Every structure is written in C-alpha cells, then in structure tokens.
C-alpha cells in the first residue's frame, strides 16, 4: 500500500515539474472556456444551451491529449525498464500512474469546472451534476487511456494510433456525461445517468489494470 502512495507521489511530483506542458489538461480546459465565447458567440443565451456538451467534450479531449504521457517519458529515459525488472508489483505501479493521471486531469477538471460553467453561463442547477458526472466519469477515461498508452508506448511510429484506439471507449462516457449535465440543467432527474457512469467506473476499475499490465509488457518487450 505504501508503495502505491510513494509511486503516486513521485508521479505527481514529476507532473508538477514537467516542462512540456502544452497538453496540460487544465490549461486546455480553460483555453476552451476562453476561446469558445470568442469564436462561437458571446451571448449568454446561446452559450448556456451549449455549455454541458462543450464542457464535457473539452474534458474528454483534455484527458485524451494528456494520456500519451502516462508511460512515454518513463519509457524514454529508461525508468520504465527499471520498473519492469523491479520486484515490486506492476499492478500497483500501473494503478499509481492511472490515479496520478486522473488527479491531474479528471479530478482537477471537476474542481475547476464550476469556473468554466460560469464562463459559459451554464444554468446554476447544472453545476452540481456537472461536477458529479466529471468525478464519476473521468476515472474511466484515465483507465481506458492508459490501456491505449500502454499498447503504443514501445512503438516508434505510433502515429495517431492511440487516439484511434481510445476514442471508441470514450464515446459512451461522453454521451452519459453530457446527458447528465443536460438533464440537470433542465431540472430533470440525473440519478439514472450517474448510475450508468458508476457502472462503467466499477467495470473499468475491475478489468483495466490487468489489461494495462499485459499491454505494457507486450509493448516494451517487443
């Protein structure tokens, strides 16, 4: 257990010190918040109708864009090799990486999503459903993304592969997630949507670690 914590701490430390942070999920998220009104329409009535979908699409893209880094830098400087030959459990390591990715993407996004909601004039009733749906939905995004990242980390010419692999897995989350917020903003019940997001979360938490570890070994040892 304490190894898991140490691994999360290391990854968080590295994330804070990372230099090439153009794909920083938070920055991306906020940029969308600034650009969308400028590009599409500054009017509150237009923006507020779009806000649920736009915020969820932005969150999803933010996750997708940052997912490639989960294993990449460790692969490039030999740290991943060291992890593979270490006696520590790969499952814990991989879970630490997923959790860290979620903390710097999904969790942060959920925390600042009320700000974005304000910038896009999301009706007040939609804010709570937004935060909840992001909190429930984004961990699955990190896990699915990690599977794709693990499969492609050893490849020298990945191309757009990872996006292609991950996108189909992301779409259900997007649909249920934005559905939650739309329903919430209109004052409809959201429990059904949240239950679906929860089910996806449980399912992916149970299965994805095995998939990630297997993918990682295949990819690095190729």
């Amino acid at each position, binding site marked *: 257990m304490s*190894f898991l914590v*140490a*691994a999360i701490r*290391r990854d968080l*430390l*590295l994330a804070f*010190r*990372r*230099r090439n942070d153009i794909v920083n999920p938070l920055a991306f998220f906020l940029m969308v918040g600034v650009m969308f009104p400028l590009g599409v329409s500054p009017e509150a009535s237009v923006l507020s109708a779009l806000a649920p979908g736009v915020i969820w699409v932005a969150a999803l893209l933010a996750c997708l864009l940052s997912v490639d880094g989960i294993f990449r830098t460790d692969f490039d*400087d*030999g*740290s*991943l*090799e*060291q*992890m*593979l*030959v*270490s*006696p*520590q459990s790969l499952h814990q390591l991989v879970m630490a990486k997923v959790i860290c990715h979620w903390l710097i993407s999904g969790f942060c996004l959920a925390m600042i999503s009320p700000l974005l909601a304000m910038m896009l004039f999301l009706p007040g009733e939609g804010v709570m459903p937004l935060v909840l749906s992001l909190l429930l939905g984004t961990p699955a995004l990190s896990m699915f993304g990690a599977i794709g990242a693990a499969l492609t980390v050893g490849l020298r010419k990945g191309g757009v592969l990872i996006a292609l692999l991950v996108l189909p897995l992301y779409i259900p989350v997007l649909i249920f997630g934005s559905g939650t917020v739309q329903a919430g903003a209109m004052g409809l019940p959201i429990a059904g949507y949240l239950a679906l997001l929860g089910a996806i979360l449980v399912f992916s938490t149970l299965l994805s670690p095995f998939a990630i570890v297997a993918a990682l070994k295949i990819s*690095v*040892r*190729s």
Partner: protein
Amino acid sequence: MLEVKNLFCERDERVLFGGLGFTVNRGEVLQIEGQNGSGKTTLLRILCGLTEAYEGDIFWQGRPIDEVREAFFHALLYVGHLAGVKAAMTAEENLAWMMRLDPMLNKYSIAEALDKVGLYGYEDVPCYALSAGQQRRVGLARLYLSTAPIWILDEPFTALDKKGVAEKEALIAEHVNSGGVVILTTHHNLQIPGKSIRYMNLDQQASAQ
C-alpha cells in the same frame, strides 16, 4: 547461477548470435565483448527479460527463467544504457525512488550514497542541471546501494571520469569477491584486482553463423 543454452537472436533479418551457451557462477565476472552493433545490449536485455525476440533457454538456479521471474527480479540489479534517472527530479529524489522501487537497494542511506558517488552538495540540483557524468553517477549510485547478488551492467563506465571508473571497478571487485555475479559490457579495459575476468566475444559468434 545463470545458465544460457543455445540462444539465438535475429534483428531485422540479421542474425546477431546463435547457438550461444554459457554459465555464470558465484564470484564470476563475465564481460561481453564485441564491436558496435554486435548484440551486447540485446543479449543483456534478453537475460533481464526486457526483450522477447529470441529463441533458446535461460535458467536461473537450475529452473527456466520464465517460471522464476519474480525471484530473479529480486536478485537482479540492472543498469542499462539509459540509467532511468529523471531529469526533472533532484539526485536525492531519484535515489529515494530507486530505493522504493527495488528493496534490495538498502546498503546505505540516501545521504551516504550521494556522498559516495561524489554528489555531495548537489543533492538539491535537478538532474537536468548536472553534467553528463554526474547524471550517470546518480544512476550508478545503485551499485553502492545494492545487496542483490546478480548485477547486469551495460557500459557502466560511460561518461565517468577516471576516478569514477576506478571506484566502480573497486565496487565490482568487492561484489564478486563476496560471491556476487557481474555480467557487463564495456569498451574499456576492465581491471578487477585479484580476479580473472571471463570474456565472451559476440563478433566470433556472428561470424560463426
């Protein structure tokens, strides 16, 4: 301890070695030789289970290595071309993580290891601001810390100054004298006081095909 039988490896339709066999026992140093591109790194990675592109059998303490990976990893210290040093972390943070990752790195405290490796006073400098040799020293601090019996080292002396090389040689000598095993590659003339080194040349291997 480690036995290799009839190992064959091919990359990009170029046979690197075939029919390779050797045994390494306690207290032995095996130096893999060969010109650039002869397959030394590939061989070491195969031994560590980091490359699967091979045919043949590898045994660890008499048992097929795939069955005893867990135990083997406990007994192994591997330092590759890339030492797995994070440029964004300081030497101290790097060492702390290495010691978490491999519980066999427990001979000294972090501060002692940093001192031994010649980085006293640099513990708070992020590694990207260290010189090439200093970065390599961070990775090689593992040699001071390790109590693992088998060491596999790929060009451990790169970028080190003469004093650094001599220190590492002394460490290797100490390790084998206390019954450890070292398999390494280097283009440097290795000197292990009081030990004879076994050599294996991969050039002859390739031409033997």
